């Protein structure tokens, strides 16, 4: 059995249902997590379109300089440290659920 990270990113106030508004990735597809700007951290995933060069990307927005905390919390979720659940909700923006302290937004980029 695999563990999964769940993200939603509705572009408006309606329920997320469009392309790049919902995504779930197996944790084994995480390739790296790195700072992208002062207030964003990027998670790279193995691309779902089968190419080798266009990675799927989820970008989390957080407080200035808070990357280390976000990375630590993400790894904790990847390793299901707290609840041993295979289904980890990282961001459910529609319901204002962000399970990493300080994260306020999520963006999904997926080529297919």
């Amino acid at each position, binding site marked *: *059995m*695999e*563990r999964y990270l769940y993200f939603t990113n509705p572009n408006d106030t309606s329920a997320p249902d469009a392309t790049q508004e919902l995504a779930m990735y197996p*944790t*084994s597809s*995480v*390739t*790296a*997590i*790195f*700072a*992208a*700007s*002062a207030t964003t951290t*990027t998670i*790279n995933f*193995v*691309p779902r379109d089968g*190419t*080798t*060069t*266009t*990675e799927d990307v989820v970008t989390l927005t957080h407080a200035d*300089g808070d*990357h*280390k905390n976000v*990375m*630590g919390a*993400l*790894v*904790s979720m*990847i*390793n*299901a*440290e707290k609840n*041993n659940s*295979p289904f980890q909700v990282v961001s459910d923006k529609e319901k204002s659920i962000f399970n990493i302290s300080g994260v306020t937004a999520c963006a999904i980029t997926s080529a297919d």
Partner: protein
Amino acid sequence: MLLHLLTNTYIYMKTNFLYFRENGYQQYTATDTQTNFTINGDANWDLDVSADTEVKVEVTFLEAQTTKCGSAYSGGEVDAGETVTVNNTGKSISTNDIVIANQGADGTNGITISAGDIITISLIPVEGTEACFRADKLLAVNSTSDTITVLKFKASNGAAADDTVTLTHPDNDGAEFKLIADYVNEVCNANIAERGNVIACWDKQNNVIGRGLAKAGVTKMRVAIA
């Protein structure tokens, strides 16, 4: 991955993640009218900054000021202990120094520094300044010179080029390489599965340097994302 035990208890295999952060933070207690603050050099950051827009410069005033601060900052009047961020027009770079414009030269964006003011200069995070790599994506640890050892991870974006962590250390006929290799082996195989959090290998500005890297005398660390 999951091990299904005979007892129907599920144990999730956990992955070590290695955390690296380039050193890019320095604080100075200023002298009166000081304008230049050295950030580049072997004793300073892990990387050399080439543009003032790569850094954030903050001034924390020792005393209240009414004539030394440009109008862009709290209308030109600041309180004791107040911290302002110098805007891009108020700072520049001169080779290895960040230069804060004098208020007399720029009444809007300049600040005339007083003795005891605290100047904090920090690297603005961008791709490559801070990263977390999967231990199981490690491809190799190899030396590229007598003072450089490189950790290569499979590219996180699928590119042919790898993600790299470049370590600078003294030359002692390969002894440092062995220490670093031992350390990498140790952290990749560290049995911290129950903790499940990141392993901070290098976060110099927060005084975190992995034991093996410290033993090897590593002085600088650079991250490059493919």
